[in-house]
């Protein structure tokens, strides 16, 4: 930013510092409602689960390195394989994308000072942590959605908007499914019990009504990150911006109409399968639009192939391969032949790891300077990309072939005489290489956190608002609520100069309280100033109580459950008895 040196301006900044100051120490982290701190909590928690899920993957691969392997017992293998999937989906990819990236970046990109419901936001993190820990004790519960809203959003924000929509509508199906299951198990209901007139397919339908939108919940944040990184590193605006925004929203809608393509082999009527296959083909189109928008932007720009863009290139390549194999599954007979084999494992790892996680990793590199104020090491960053990408290709590509050769998924071992050995060997070696690439990335970032050169506010010439503020960002994010007139505000030089003027004049600084502006819902004009709650102990306490309630229901301790329920009610009352603090 330009000059902010008038004494009055400096006083205003000090006032903002004081108003938005966080409590120090552990207590500060426990009671925080700052979206950035909550984002960081999500980040480290989900990365810890990523490490756990990755370790499980390596154990699975080690068991399968040769035919008739004996690293794990069948029971241990089945548990490890299940926890790998559950951890990666529910405890890593979703929380890191919506929880860490969404939380940290959305307000920074739209010029806000916090999320719309800061305490609910904190609450959702603590519930996530509780459920993740509980899952590692045994059983799963869900975590709730949260999202901000503003207008003039970058494509990143459109992607997260679509995700939030999908989360809100998809999760109830899973909740109902889990509720029915719990009723079946505990209270003798028979939703899924064929012996008493239930239907096991009901479980599958409900699961996949959640499960397929879930795939887009996973992939859309990646699309959002790609559409943030590509313009920065190609020095040009995204091609076909309205089409891409529309495509991101469309994908989240159409994704609700395709669930039964996971069930082509259960014996549904042919006409039903044909409908779902047609819907599955239609959902290809928004992805194709986005893919060619990225490619065209790259081709018509002037790209700089440094670490973040390399991850996005890797993402594009993996997404194309995974997308093309995905289209194959919209051909019903092919689906019926190859579903539940390693071919489908290959497909969804190209999508979930290559297409969803690569941009997350690229995004970690991209926003690392913003969050820490330091630059990562570029050669090591590029090396970590190449090692991880090579390892991923070696791990996941042979899975296509071994699937075509007839290897079913979820088998803890396989015989020697069916010709699957060499491919499995390659996959296991690949998984170690992949892990080495990720370790190198961790080493790079840890080292850079302590020793990296200072990055300054905008090391890449990024176009979105988060690059307008210092790195790391101050607690109040923006000293003045910024003027925004396009999706690339940093490239609108006049707007930025206008912000400096406003700060010097004391206009839209909102330094009289813990405040953020609200906009009108449809066209994003300034509407009113909201008082935001600051740090509060109630989210963490309430989350602890509700986790206790569900833990006790699932383990059958109904008396203890009632106690937790009472404490939960008390903490909700406590939450609502304390109004947002006035300055």
């Amino acid at each position, binding site marked *: 930013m330009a000059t902010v040196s008038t004494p009055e301006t400096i006083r205003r900044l000090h006032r903002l510092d004081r108003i938005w100051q966080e409590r120090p120490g552990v207590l500060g982290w426990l009671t925080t409602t700052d979206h950035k701190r909550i984002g960081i909590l999500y980040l480290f928690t989900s990365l810890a689960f990523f490490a756990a899920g990755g370790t499980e993957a390596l154990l699975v691969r080690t068991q399968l390195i040769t035919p008739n392997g004996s690293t794990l017992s*069948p*029971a241990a293998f*089945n548990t490890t394989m299940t926890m790998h999937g559950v951890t990666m989906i529910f405890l890593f990819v979703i929380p890191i994308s919506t929880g860490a990236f969404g939380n940290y970046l959305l307000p920074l990109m739209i010029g806000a000072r916090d999320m719309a419901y800061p305490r609910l936001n904190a609450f959702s993190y603590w519930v996530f942590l509780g459920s993740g820990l509980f899952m590692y004790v045994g059983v799963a519960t869900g975590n709730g959605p949260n999202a901000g809203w503003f207008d003039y959003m970058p494509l990143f924000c459109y992607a997260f908007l679509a995700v939030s929509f999908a989360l809100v509508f998809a999760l109830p199906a899973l909740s109902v499914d889990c509720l029915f299951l719990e009723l079946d198990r505990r209270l003798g209901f028979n939703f899924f019990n*064929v012996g008493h007139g239930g*239907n*096991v397919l009901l479980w599958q339908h409900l699961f996949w009504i959640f499960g397929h939108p879930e795939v887009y919940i996973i992939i859309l944040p990646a699309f959002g990150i790609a559409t943030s990184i590509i313009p920065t590193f190609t020095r*040009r*605006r995204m*091609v*076909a911006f309205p*089409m891409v925004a529309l495509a991101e929203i469309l994908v989240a809608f159409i994704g609700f109409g395709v669930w039964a393509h996971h069930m082509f*082999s*259960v014996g549904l009527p042919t006409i039903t399968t*044909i409908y779902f296959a*047609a819907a599955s*083909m239609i959902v290809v*189109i928004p992805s*194709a639009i986005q893919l*060619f928008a990225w*490619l*065209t932007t*790259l*081709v*018509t*720009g*002037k*790209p*700089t*192939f440094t670490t973040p863009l390399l991850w996005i*290139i890797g993402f*594009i*390549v993996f997404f*194309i391969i995974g997308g*093309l194999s995905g*289209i194959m599954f*919209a*051909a*019903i*007979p*092919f689906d*019926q*032949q190859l579903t*539940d084999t390693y071919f489908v494992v290959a497909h969804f790892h190209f999508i979930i790891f290559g297409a969803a996680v690569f941009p997350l990793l690229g995004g970690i590199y991209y926003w690392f300077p913003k969050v820490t104020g330091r630059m990562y090491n*570029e*050669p090591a960053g590029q090396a970590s990309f190449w090692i991880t990408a090579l390892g991923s290709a070696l791990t996941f590509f042979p899975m*296509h*072939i071994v699937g*075509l*050769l*007839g290897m*079913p998924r979820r*088998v*803890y*071992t396989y*015989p020697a*005489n*069916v*010709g699957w050995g060499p491919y499995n060997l390659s996959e296991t070696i690949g998984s170690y290489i992949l892990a080495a690439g990720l370790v190198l990335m961790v080493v790079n970032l840890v080292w850079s956190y302590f020793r990296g050169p200072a990055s300054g506010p905008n090391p890449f*010439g990024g176009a979105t608002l988060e690059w307008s503020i210092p790195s790391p960002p101050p607690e109040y994010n923006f000293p003045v609520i910024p003027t925004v007139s396009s999706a690339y505000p940093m*490239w609108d030089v006049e707007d930025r100069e206008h912000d400096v003027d406003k700060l010097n004049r004391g206009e839209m600084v909102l330094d009289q309280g813990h405040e953020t502006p609200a906009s009108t819902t449809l066209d994003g004009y300034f509407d009113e100033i909201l008082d935001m709650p600051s740090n509060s102990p109630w989210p963490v306490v309430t989350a602890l109580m509700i986790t206790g309630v569900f833990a006790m229901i699932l383990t059958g301790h109904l008396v203890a459950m009632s106690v937790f329920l009472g404490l939960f009610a008390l903490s909700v009352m406590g939450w609502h008895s304390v109004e947002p603090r006035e300055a």
Partner: protein
Amino acid sequence: MDTRGRDLRGKRAAPAGSLVRRLLLLAGLGCALLLIAGCGQSQGGQSTLHPASDQSRKILHLFWGMLAAAVVVFIGAVVLLAISYRRRNREGIPLVEAENEKAVSSGLVVAFGIVIPVACLIVLFFIANIGVVKATDAPAPGQTKMNVTVIGHQWFWEVRYPGSAAVTANEIHIPVKTPVNVTLKTADVIHSFWVPELNKKVDMIPGHPNTLELYADHVGMYRGQCAEFCGLQHAHMSMAVYADPPAKFRAWLANMAKPVAPPASPQAKAGEQVFLTQQCASCHTIRGTSARGTIGPDLTHLQTRNTLAALTIPNRKGYLGAWVIDPQHFKPGNKMPGLNLSGAQFSNLLTFLEGLK
């Protein structure tokens, strides 16, 4: 972003420059591996690449067609990435798009992102989801002369031949070049019946029988495996389909329908008593004796089968004995307990089991 940056980029041309080459190499390698896999004919495998029926062949042709189209798209994308890589140092490219360029770029997105995919998908839809679907659909009940019922159990396949007393397990015999209508049921959880060289897979759903056509156009053994996770020993739930010449099949079925012959020797007779008085008979059926258990596979003609425990081990003397002594060794978690038999009981039991022809 500065001039120094360009030097750095120049130096780092090597890793990024090999991007295209590596991707092409990867794609080429993948295709080569696929071809090798496709050409190597392995008898008794369960490869979708070795179809032995019209259904599996049509599915494979569909795959090759889709793969060809996919390779074209992939190469096209890689070419675009290569072009963008060549532009990395170009001078005079504006920060934002010029207005006239915008129309061209959006046109490209519409053409490649909407028009061409829609056209390809419509073609694919009609070929795959109208054409091949019909070819792989199960025949209506009563359309085929030959019927088999397969019932999934944790973790073996019970095989019945309606109209005949024959019951067997894990090894399904069918006459070659004859459409066979298979009814698929389950005794417990969801399983999935899959013999890839003969047809697609179909799930076995509790309370919801499904059907599938099996047809083999030459004599041979076709391996199959449960394709839906069904618990601890999902991995050891395989089967073999033997397509026999019709005369051989009829002889086999006639033998399978008979009850067992009386034991031929005193040892076998003593072994039969072991079978009936120890726990064996509570789980297994041997037609022609009082053994009527239904938890494990029917053992009436055990020695007509080549394998034990759903293709886990060969059905040879040493393996059969080892299995009886410690069934949990080869297939931990299966429902058969180890028995505390004396040496004499064990050897008589084996003699009896080896006589079940």
